[in-house]
């Protein structure tokens, strides 16, 4: 559905995108995972024909993003990174306006947005600027969907949104996918990667890996352990001072570690006991997306 071949983009001296390649399939939910400043927004703008790439070519549904920009603009739905609706117009007026812009009506494609819009219905007379974060995001999605786009581009739809609304949002995306809409979504939250069919990990304008979430975690090269004790603050310090470890990163109340050489749990256990830790647990752990991302980041550096 989306084909990207060797896209590069620079702003002055800053290289925002560096030789990006990837393809998505029809009906696929594809995620671009990476922190702010990784180049996600530039890539979205190029794919939605709003920005010209310096190098490379890209197409959406077979239409070239540079030459056929008019065609692209009529078949895509786009939700930019920041809240981009009219704050002084009501929920209903916003939706009506965007329906008209795409020469359709709310009624025509109501089935698509029904589940989402029903949650907004009680507030439909309220100005969009006065909605809560989660509600704004639902309205923005409704507006991007109202013309039944073939491809949906969602740039960081869950940034700054609380965990509950985020979860609901991903449930909505899963439903849209069932209706056959191809979706490209970006997020800085690594835990959301698992909701996508395939993901690209992006950092400093480069794609570090593309695979299914499972494939990516499977490719984690080292043996990973999760360590915990009663005093996590000291545990971090002590593990960082322990020379045998390659990495030690906090994950909630645990610390994920990898060894430079062959893992030696017993020695580590003794070291931690000597350092005064109690209730020490060192157990093998399956790598998550965030583990993989940090590993790839280190390789890149």
């Amino acid at each position: 559905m989306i084909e990207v071949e060797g896209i590069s983009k620079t702003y002055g001296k800053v290289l925002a995108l560096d030789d990006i390649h990837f393809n998505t399939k029809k009906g696929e939910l594809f995620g671009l995972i990476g922190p702010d400043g990784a180049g996600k927004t530039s890539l979205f703008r190029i794919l939605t024909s709003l920005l010209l790439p310096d190098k490379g070519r890209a197409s959406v549904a077979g239409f070239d993003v540079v030459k056929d920009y008019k065609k692209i603009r009529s078949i895509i739905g786009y939700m930019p990174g920041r809240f981009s609706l009219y704050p002084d117009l009501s929920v209903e007026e916003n939706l009506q306006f965007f329906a008209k812009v795409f020469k359709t009506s709310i009624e025509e494609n109501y089935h698509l947005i029904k589940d989402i819009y029903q949650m907004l219905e009680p507030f439909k007379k309220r100005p969009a600027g006065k909605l809560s974060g989660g509600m704004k995001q639902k309205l923005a999605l409704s507006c991007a969907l109202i013309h039944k786009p073939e491809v949906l581009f969602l740039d960081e739809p869950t940034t700054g949104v609380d965990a509950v609304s985020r979860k609901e949002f991903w449930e909505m995306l899963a439903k849209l996918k069932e209706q056959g809409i191809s979706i490209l979504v970006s997020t800085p939250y690594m835990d959301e990667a698992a909701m996508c069919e395939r993901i690209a990990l992006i950092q400093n304008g480069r794609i570090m890996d593309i695979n299914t979430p499972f494939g990516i975690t499977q490719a984690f090269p080292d043996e990973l352990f999760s360590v915990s004790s009663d005093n996590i603050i000291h545990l971090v310090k002590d593990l960082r001072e322990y020379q045998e470890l390659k990495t030690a990163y906090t994950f909630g109340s645990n610390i994920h570690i990898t060894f430079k050489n062959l893992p030696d749990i017993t020695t580590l256990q003794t070291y931690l006991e000597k350092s005064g830790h109690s209730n020490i647990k060192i157990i093998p752990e399956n790598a998550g997306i965030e583990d993989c991302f940090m590993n790839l980041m280190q390789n890149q550096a």
Partner: protein
Amino acid sequence: MNDKQIAIKSENLVKKFGNFVANDHLTFEVAQGEIFGFLGANGAGKTTAIKILCGISKPTSGNIRVAGFDVYTENEKIKKNIGYMSQRFSLYEELSIWENLRFYGGIYGLSAKTIRERSEAVLKRLGLEDQRNAHVRSLPLGWKQKLAFSVAILHRPGIVFLDEPTGGVDPITRRQFWDLIYEAAADGITVFVTTHYMDEAEYCQRVSIMVDGRIVALDKPTALKNTYSCKSMEEVFLKLAR
């Protein structure tokens, strides 16, 4: 925590906007040097409460003291004794790192000598010594946030309020940011932090969870997980906030 000094004491904090109750009888205490997680869904009333605690807005009712000062009458003193940093509030992009440090030090009335010493220490800690004259604009987001935090505690406030400080920051830098938080707390600075990353909630000594203007849970992360028999804070949050 009774044996420790109390940094924030809030008794029945109420804030109403017309008929709408944004904060409904919030009662909690935060000890000096504690890392306190202030969680809640969007629109639950977190920002309103933080504004009151920072002395920027006045509560409708309630007895609230921050750093020992009353929020109704001594808000100017409160402002001198706290640091504040949010995802949006940041540094002056067109000023250099050094100029930002000097400017904020000046705002809080630090002497030139103190500013110089502490700024050097910050640059050294963050490994930015070579880039002291670089414009803040040119820094990656993660670095900006770490610098913004260091600036917020440059005047050694008793309490620092952090409003979603790590939003959009990459996973490694995010963890480095929390190292800074721990160091500040070890120096006795109280850290009052909001976040949407639920793994970060686990790093707090205690967390409160707000739903519709009320605090529905307040305890250590481990205790909360036990109470609600959940494996992670994320589950606890989803259970309570949904």
